[in-house]
């Protein structure tokens, strides 16, 4: 039993991202309001960004800035002393993508509101059926 808990706690970052992902997915599927759906979508994307961020981390490591760079005499850099910068860099791009998606989605929501005067999905479908 304690084995299971240690297993669970040691990978807490995964549990957090999975929980966030499920919250986002739930909102996207179950919510009726389009803006809530969009928020769910954003949570979903953020969960994956957090997942990437967390996999770069290392115990006892520092930020990956090598203080004596070029020009000084060469010395050994231990990779274990620095956290992995690559996932973080990737996520810069992913954040941009997420923001762009959010922007497009919100713009579409504004259009939908103009068209149907509501953001509740059931009411919109009702109006489509009536027309």
């Amino acid at each position, binding site marked *: 039993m304690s084995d299971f808990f240690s297993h669970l706690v040691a990978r807490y970052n995964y549990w957090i991202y999975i929980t966030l992902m499920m919250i986002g*997915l739930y909102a*996207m599927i179950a919510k009726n309001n*389009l803006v809530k*759906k969009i928020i769910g*979508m954003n949570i*979903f*994307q953020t969960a*994956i960004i957090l*997942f*990437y961020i967390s*996999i770069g981390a290392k115990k006892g490591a520092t930020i990956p800035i090598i203080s004596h760079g070029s020009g000084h005499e060469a010395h050994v850099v231990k990779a274990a002393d620095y956290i992995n910068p*690559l*996932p973080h860099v*990737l996520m810069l*791009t*992913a954040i941009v*993508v997420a923001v*762009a*998606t959010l922007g*497009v*989605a919100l713009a*579409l*929501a504004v*259009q*939908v509101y103009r*068209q*149907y005067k509501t953001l509740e999905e059931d009411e*919109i479908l009702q109006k*489509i059926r009536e027309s």
Partner: protein
Amino acid sequence: MNAQMPVLIVVVPLLSAFAIAAAGWFNRRLCMPTAAAALGVATLCTLGLLLRVIQDGEVVYRLGGWAAPWGIVYRVDFLNAPVLVLVAAIALVNLVATSRIVVEEFPGKEGAFYALYVLFVTGLLGMVVTGDAFNLYVLLEIASITGYALIAMGRGRAVLASLNYVFMGTIGACFYLLGIGYLYIMTGSLNMTDIASFLPPLYSSKAVITAFIIIMVGVWLKMALFPLHGWLPNAYTYAPSSVSSLVAPLMTKVMVYVMIRIILTVFTPAFTFRALGLNQAVVWLAVAAIFMGSLMALAQRNLKRMLTYILIAEVGYMVGGAWLGNRAGLTGAVLHILNDGLMTFCLFLAAGNILYRVRGLNMEDLRGLFRKMPFTMGGFVIGALSIIGVPPTCGFFSKWYLILGGIQAGHYGFVVALLFSSLVNLILFFRIIEVGYFEPHSEHRHEGQDHAPSMEEAPVGMVVSLLIVASGLILAGLYAGDIVQRVVNLAIPESIV
């Protein structure tokens, strides 16, 4: 210049998008020519690349001169060179064909439209050309986000359909990203060939298997494989016709390419087809896709909506063919990417032409069309014959390889599904041809005129483009042997028999 071709096919359209957006402010008449020039350059580059690949084999391009595992690499081989040509050529032809509609449909918005259009094509070309798994995600999102915007430019329910597509598309892309994250944890690399070199000892790892399955689900969502197809029919039906004839033929096909690339290059056939043991299940999924797509298509009364369901069935063809795991099946799948791209393009173009003149695509709008638009309907019939799978149109040959693959793999469900879908397609298209051929044109019937209504074709540019594509279908069929022998065969690893 020659050495830079792989990057030019992405950079030229990308930069031209800014130029077009700027031209939209100053002189809107410059938008379309700029886009055409950019896509023309891209098309020439893809053709040049294809020839180079056929002559010298694989072409590798390092962006910024950075070597493989650190920098991003563009890699053109026998698998993606023909897909590149397909994407660039269809985008170019569609641009020219629909320029007239765009001016009439989006007055004042040409700058935005063409900028999005070119960006979308950039995304697709980049996805196909790149050899980097994360780069692929970024380009996938470029294509998707511009795709959402383009679809939302349509009338009526287009915006809502597009928003629905945003949700589903984002889930798909995120799944792909998540899977790549797991692969990165396991291998520490994002370069496709690099990942592939690290993976074999890890094939039994649960994380790798999970990563593979998550990536596949993401890709299937994006290509609308049944039962993940819900977003597609509305999005493509309500999109403006200049957009649907671009997005519908290309997006799903490029995603199928991505799937095959992941199966063959990132993972090995030995893993996908033997170690994983999911072949049968996925092929049955494809069978279900084919049956459901065909049956749903039968229920539609709108031409464009019917085409979208046929698209879903065709996705089943390619996924099933790829997962049969033998040479014939994969040949069929790769060949069908090219052929299906062409034939759906042909049909959506024809639908666009009809919509331009008739202002509706329901069954009753199609009455008397053979008399009214004989050339458009001629192109439509050739496209239809190709989808049904009548030689010498190209659709026959990919279907031939797919069925042959099914027979060789002993998967008779897939064989039956393909034959069934051919027969259903026969019914689907001849139902439309009957309406167009037998029933008199509705307007003239109301007026009580006896004499036949006169011809009223779509603008010359649209008709000529359609006929070029239609003859392309026949040419691609006549040269099917060469295409398979010189290109497709070499795209499939020798380990697959």
